[in-house]
């Protein structure tokens, strides 16, 4: 209490001034950080005849221009992403301001609605793209980008970047979900063959169950508020295999009811594996343990030899503990989840799309760069640890390091393969990221197929 009368005031002023100085210093730092890049870019392009920059000549000199990019891709996947922009930055002089946030999906909508969107957003779901387009802030993709997509992707992918007949977003990366992880050494030792049809897969499961007295499959679906999503992938895979891509599309668009015979058969087929006491949950417990095991842990029993098969996307490669060799002759690898017969090759996957909120020349140039084969190959080279693929047909598989990525790309680029995007990502949020997850979780813990699908059908927004 016995403070001198004026003491608080200077302290307050000082603290305020301190805050201000710090912020000014921060601003100054940011700007001066840009200079060298811009300078370097100018000298590189001034050099002319430089092979490295030939592909970027059409973008002109973008020295001093900044493109802001907002994405859900954070550590550790952000580093290769940022590195893959460097050739563009060096050759054109533009700066890419990268901002990654795990809550991207809500924040990007908030920012679009508030009129503060980034120049470019990497949108991981077609459903979110539709929401963004409905804010009226997304600009149509330039003609060059559309041409690139026609050339390097195809109708199926282009369709996912199109909203209401207008093409907005070019695909970027992809992930491949129709994979079953296994232990190559175990398969060799016991003489198991990689199955080529669904029936062979069932036969293999029976054989493993009969052989070692262990349960062949392991799974985990816990994932915080998204608990249940791995089952939606399972069901989509089975839907594609049992009913075919056309009916799959109708199901996703709700042109057939969620509880019609096709989806019922698909979920029952999943149940034949995941709700089969003889098949699951290898190394983890009874069927119900699937619900309490995190999806990250779901496949780990393969390493301990207490489980043989685990269906999960290509990105699961990042999930094995350090020191695990992911290769055809390593500790773990994956095979393609076979189709109904050898002739059909449905491929379930996901991917990101590039939505632009601005058509300044530098934004258009960067958008164009991202849709080229040049970028796809740069990205592959910038990802020394693997774990990234794209369905871009210009991507040279030789640039990919990890065997699992090569496998995934070979299937995606296979002319026989029919690609379909993850269905739950396209459904309305009330289903795709709510009731579908919740009912899938209830289903695995005991609810029957009909009740579960009836409830999802009832939750579909009218």
């Amino acid at each position, binding site marked *: *209490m016995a403070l001198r009368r004026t003491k*608080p005031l200077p302290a307050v002023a000082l603290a305020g001034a301190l805050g*201000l100085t710090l912020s000014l210093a*921060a601003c100054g730092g940011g700007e001066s950080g840009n200079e060298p890049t811009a300078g370097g870019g100018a000298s590189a392009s001034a050099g002319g005849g430089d092979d490295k920059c030939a592909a970027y000549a059409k973008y002109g000199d973008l020295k001093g221009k900044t493109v802001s990019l907002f994405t859900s891709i954070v550590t550790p996947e952000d580093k290769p992403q940022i590195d893959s922009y460097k050739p563009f930055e060096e050759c054109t002089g533009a700066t890419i301001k990268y901002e990654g946030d*795990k809550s991207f999906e809500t924040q990007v909508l908030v920012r679009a609605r*508030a*009129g*503060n969107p980034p120049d470019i957003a990497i949108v991981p779901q077609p459903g979110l793209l539709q929401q963004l387009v409905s804010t009226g802030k997304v600009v149509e993709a330039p003609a060059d980008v559309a041409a690139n997509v026609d050339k390097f992707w195809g109708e199926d992918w282009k369709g996912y970047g199109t909203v209401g007949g207008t093409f907005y977003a070019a695909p970027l990366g992809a992930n491949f979900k129709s994979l079953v992880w296994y232990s190559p050494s175990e398969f060799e030792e016991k003489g198991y063959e990689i199955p080529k049809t669904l029936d062979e897969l069932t036969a293999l499961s029976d054989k493993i169950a009969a052989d070692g007295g262990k349960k062949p499959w392991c799974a985990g679906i816990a994932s915080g508020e998204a608990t249940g999503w791995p089952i939606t992938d399972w069901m989509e895979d089975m839907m594609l295999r049992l009913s075919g891509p056309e009916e799959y599309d109708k199901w996703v668009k709700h042109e057939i009811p969620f509880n019609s015979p096709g989806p019922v058969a698909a979920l029952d087929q999943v149940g034949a594996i995941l709700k089969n006491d003889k098949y699951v949950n290898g190394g983890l417990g009874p069927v119900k343990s699937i619900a309490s095991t995190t999806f990250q842990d779901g496949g780990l029993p393969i390493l301990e030899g207490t489980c043989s098969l685990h269906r999960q996307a290509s990105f699961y490669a990042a*999930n094995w503990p350090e020191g695990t060799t992911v290769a055809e002759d390593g500790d773990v690898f994956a095979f393609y989840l076979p189709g109904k017969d050898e002739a059909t090759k449905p491929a379930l996957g996901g991917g990101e799309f590039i939505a632009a909120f601005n058509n300044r020349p530098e934004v258009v140039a960067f958008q164009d760069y991202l849709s080229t084969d040049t970028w796809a190959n740069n990205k592959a080279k910038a990802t020394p640890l693997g774990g990234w693929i794209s369905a871009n047909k210009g991507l040279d598989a030789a640039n990919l390091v990890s065997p699992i990525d090569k496998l995934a790309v070979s299937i995606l680029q296979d002319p026989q393969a029919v690609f379909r995007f993850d269905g739950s990502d396209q459904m309305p949020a009330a289903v795709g990221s709510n009731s579908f997850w919740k009912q899938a979780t209830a289903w695995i813990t005991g609810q029957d197929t009909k009740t579960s699908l009836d409830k999802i059908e009832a939750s579909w927004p009218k």
Partner: protein
Amino acid sequence: MTATTPAALPVTTTPPIAVTVNAAAGNAKNRLTSRWASMAAVVLAVLWTIPTFGLAVSSLRPAADTRRSGWWTTFTDPEFTLKNYRDVFSDNGLGAFFVNSFVITIPSVVIPLCLASLAAYAFAWVEFKGRNLLFVVVFALQIVPIQVTLLPLLKLFVSANLAGTFWTIWLSHSVFALPLAIFLIHNFMREIPKELIEAARMDGAGHVQIFFRVLLPLLTPALAAFGIFQFLWVWNDLLVALTFAGGGDAVAPLTVFIANLAGTRGTALHLLSAGAFISIIVPVVVFLALQRYFVRGLLAGGLKG
């Protein structure tokens, strides 16, 4: 303490005649210092500390262990490493975000403190028409949940060209803090005897002099209490920073960094505990250094509504 004891009177079964305040105080003292009460306090304290302790243990465990088993298994199978801390600092550039957190927090504490103490003075000691109504309106703003204000506020900031700077975060934290700050400081000011102010006025002091020379020195505990309160709130805030710091890493605080630490697909959960522990240090230091003001100031302001 003395203010609370009369309330305890009806509960006591001692003869109703002439129960002195002292006896009641002694009674209360006996009850509070009983062996059972102490034990209950210790048990509560231990229970309360377990999660933090678990966090500390987790942050020191190797990544593979964290993935496989709970932190309590370390008691039977101890294995510790500092790798998580090294990773958080070196690979992920925590330092810059740490500085950002300070740059955000200090003005976000100072701005509402300055404005609120001036406003509280006006509400407490300046006579003007509609004063009480205005005071009620200001405090009623406390009821507005901040979630409903996020989008409109961001729109305002965007149209004022402030988006992507620290100003958005400073201003929004200040705005959200003001109603409670004004209320607390106003109540504290009202407790200061009127005679003191009148005496100063007789000596020829104006509002400015009264505020700076008479009231401000007396207000220190209240200001400190609210300062800590606001500091903890701003330091730990994620929502406001996430919504308003739409300018990339340059303006994002530590909480945003930590939220992203686990990685795109949650493959680096082991880093989370180390990051969280680093973030805890600052509020703990601030709280320990100023905790006596915290309790004193809050009690002083809050009891007299």
